[in-house]
């Protein structure tokens, strides 16, 4: 939490609009002055990778504003993401009353909105606890056991595809929602309502750094609260999967944690996995030799997903707040400063990856991408990987060739997730 990271529920339209407009106006103004982070956050007519070349080399951490630091270095990014002093919220600011960001604010806009602090404000310790508690449901081994079931969901969808369809709205997202609903045992009759609500949460990752419109903000909050209320009711009524309910061990903390785990999985998981599936399929489509590799050996689907996570990731920017004065990547960072890792830039660090600008699923680089290493996304990494791999496998084996049937449309103001709205394609061959 930073001083100007407000909970929209607590503010009138007048104040909230002013907050959103001012942050966005300041991003735009700083973008006009050539500040790379501002150009990224305003997310209009810019290819992020066109900015990264000039940001490479020493120092690895660059000062973007008086108290904002940015890196595209893989080693620095790795260190920052695992640095426990760099958190989601600054303890001092978390206690203070939040204020909207205005033109006379004596600070820089850092984190913009708090959608749900108990879910998205979790720090390293919270995450460790969450992992430990829910590992038997959402951990790598647990989701791996469900691989066959997930594969079935996507195989069924892929089997129905023919002619023109939308990769996002006709395949990826509905498949992801079904698979995730199966995972937590969401009752069938509640699924249409969930599918409707989750559409309102598309900006959930972006809203931390890039202000949505006023209407999108209100919808985001209403949708998120709707999903939360639905899950609370199902947990209370013991109507979710037994494995999930078993994690609630009678303590209040465990109830809160299980709810957080379900929210992260259902909300963040839906969007990260759906975007990842589409971008994997699109990347393979653009490189027919890579498409053919997966078609010849479907077990490479997981490798294709990993390479997409590196090359065109569904999470592009990670932001932390220094909880104390600290030395980060050799530089002194003050308590309360913002430290930003440009994940898509770090994933193409030429010091670490050979030929970083090429999409190649058979990579043997020793280093891995950083895409799913940020705090809220780290939790959903295992399930996202399984869903994306199985969806890619099902599509590439089910459809011999794919052609574009129109332009890919992404949502505005989506610098973090690069959320895809539509992806019209045609099944060929």
């Amino acid at each position, binding site marked *: 939490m930073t001083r100007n990271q407000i909970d929209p529920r607590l503010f*009138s*339209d*007048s*104040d*909230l*609009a*002013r907050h*959103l*407009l*001012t*942050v*966005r*106006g*300041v991003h*735009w*103004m700083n973008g*006009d002055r050539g500040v790379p982070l501002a150009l990224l956050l*305003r997310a*209009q*007519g810019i290819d992020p990778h066109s900015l990264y070349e000039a940001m490479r080399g020493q120092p690895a951490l660059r000062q973007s504003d008086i108290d904002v630091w940015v890196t595209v270095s893989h080693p620095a990014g790795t260190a920052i993401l695992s640095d426990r002093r760099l958190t989601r919220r600054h303890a001092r600011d978390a206690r203070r009353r939040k204020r909207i960001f205005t*033109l006379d604010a*004596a600070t820089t806009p850092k984190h913009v909105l708090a959608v749900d602090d108990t879910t998205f404000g979790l720090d390293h310790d919270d995450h460790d606890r969450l992992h430990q508690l829910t590992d038997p449901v959402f951990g790598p081994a647990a989701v791996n056991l469900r691989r066959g079931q997930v594969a079935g969901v996507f195989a069924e969808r892929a089997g129905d595809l023919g002619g023109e369809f939308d990769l996002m709205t006709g395949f990826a997202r509905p498949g992801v929602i079904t698979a995730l609903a199966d995972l937590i045992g969401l009752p069938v009759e509640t699924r249409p309502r969930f599918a409707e609500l989750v559409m309102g949460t598309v900006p959930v990752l972006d809203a931390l750094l890039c202000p949505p*419109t*006023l*209407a999108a903000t209100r919808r985001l909050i209403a949708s998120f609260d709707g999903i939360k209320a639905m899950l609370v009711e199902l947990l209370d009524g013991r109507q979710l999967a037994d494995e999930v309910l078993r994690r609630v061990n009678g303590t209040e903390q465990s109830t809160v944690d299980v709810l957080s785990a379900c929210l992260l999985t259902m909300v963040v998981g839906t969007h990260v996995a759906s975007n990842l599936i589409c971008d994997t399929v699109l990347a393979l489509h653009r490189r027919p030799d890579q498409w053919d590799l997966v078609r010849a050996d479907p077990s490479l689907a997981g490798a294709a997903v990993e390479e997409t996570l590196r090359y065109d990731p569904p999470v592009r920017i990670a932001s932390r707040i220094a909880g104390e004065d600290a030395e980060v990547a050799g530089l002194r960072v003050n308590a309360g400063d913002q430290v930003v890792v440009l994940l898509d830039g770090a994933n193409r660090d030429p010091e670490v990856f050979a030929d970083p600008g090429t999409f190649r699923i058979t990579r043997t680089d020793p280093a891995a991408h950083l895409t799913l290493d940020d705090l809220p996304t780290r939790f959903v990494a295992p399930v996202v990987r399984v869903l994306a791999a199985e969806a890619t496998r099902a599509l590439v084996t089910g459809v011999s060739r794919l052609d574009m049937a129109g*332009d890919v*449309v*992404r*949502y*505005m*103001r989506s610098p973090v997730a690069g959320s895809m*709205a*539509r992806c019209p394609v045609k099944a060929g061959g």
Partner: protein
Amino acid sequence: MMRVLFTVFASKAHMYNVVSLAWAMRAAGHEVYVAGHPDLVDMITSTGLPAVAVGNALDMGGSWQGKGTWNQEVLSRGLSAPHEEQLRQGWDHVLGEFTLACGVRYEFLADQSFVDDMVKFACAWQPDLVVWDALTFAGPIAAIASGAAHARLLFGLDYVNRLYDDFRQLYDRQPPEQQDDPLTDWFTGRLSRIGVEYQPSMATELLTGQWTIDPMPSWMALPTKLPTVSMRAVPYNGPTTIPSWVYTRPDKPRVCLTLGVSMRELLGGAMVSTGELLTTLAELDIELIATLDASQLDSAKIPGNVTVVDFVPLNELLPSCSAIVHQAGFGTHTNAVTHGVPSIVIPDPFWDEAECGRLFEQRGAGLTLAPAEFTPEALRTKLATILEDPSYRYHAGEIQQDLLAAPTPHDIIPRLEELTRLNRGRA
């Protein structure tokens, strides 16, 4: 008798632009108040009009720069580029301009405390008409809150409306997921504070008024579909005592040199010294009246045919001038046109200065010298041209006639009274 509330942000040029119309209203028997920032109050009262202080001091000149932010770019910047160039940048440009406008620029010029105070005053005083400076967007909100009619007063070419036209066209061409619209959020927030729910159908009036009062000569004005009342700009130059030399006929052609921000920056930099500029111009057989303050003058030697003053009442000086060098600020070029004096325009970068220079050149009433091409010699050459070639004087006389043909502030009062009757309580 109507109650008319003018509102304008704390800028001398924008305040001076409302004075003649405000006095015409007063002379027609209406009650007139001018609402502005506290740091405009002395200027308002110096014009003889009653002032209402609203909001906090704006401090256009200072503090924002101190915070390392944006004073210079707060007003326009992107809008002063040629229109073709703006259109080439398409959606990203128009979206960027309104994003900056709603988040930074317009918000800075009339912030929440300014709007709140104005609404409060308007609800208490109950004006029949609010006339608002085209960048002082508290006006329409206060009018809606109090049930007044409201008109927008332009101070130059209507770049706001042109941008809005471009915005709407390009907006319609975006896929729905990309249809970003900062204006909706801005209006929604501002109206919700006075308990009014924003509807998209209200946008045009909130941005451009129920009607527009346009002091630009019609041959210069941009094409518009907005309801517009054309008005002759009658220059107001501030409190003035006329020095006696102003009305003695000069022996040599008299030239007035007045410096805009561009010129002041050039002179302040290493490129050109004031002394060199004055010496070079003085080589012409002219009497040069140069407005320079002590800091600009520095230790420059002043040639015999140069008179340096720190202020000249242009309206009184120009009848005796053969040419004027200026930055094409609204007040300045209106003075030049009113007196039929040919111009050399060294345009400022704020609003329509470059375009006005281009239009004068097109009509043969002056020449433009781009700041990037400025040298004392280049200015001397252009000045010699417009002094020697009588066609410039002739064409300056033509645009003078065009200006004088437009109805004066006095002439348009009955129309404004009628429009007020039709629109009051409608917003």
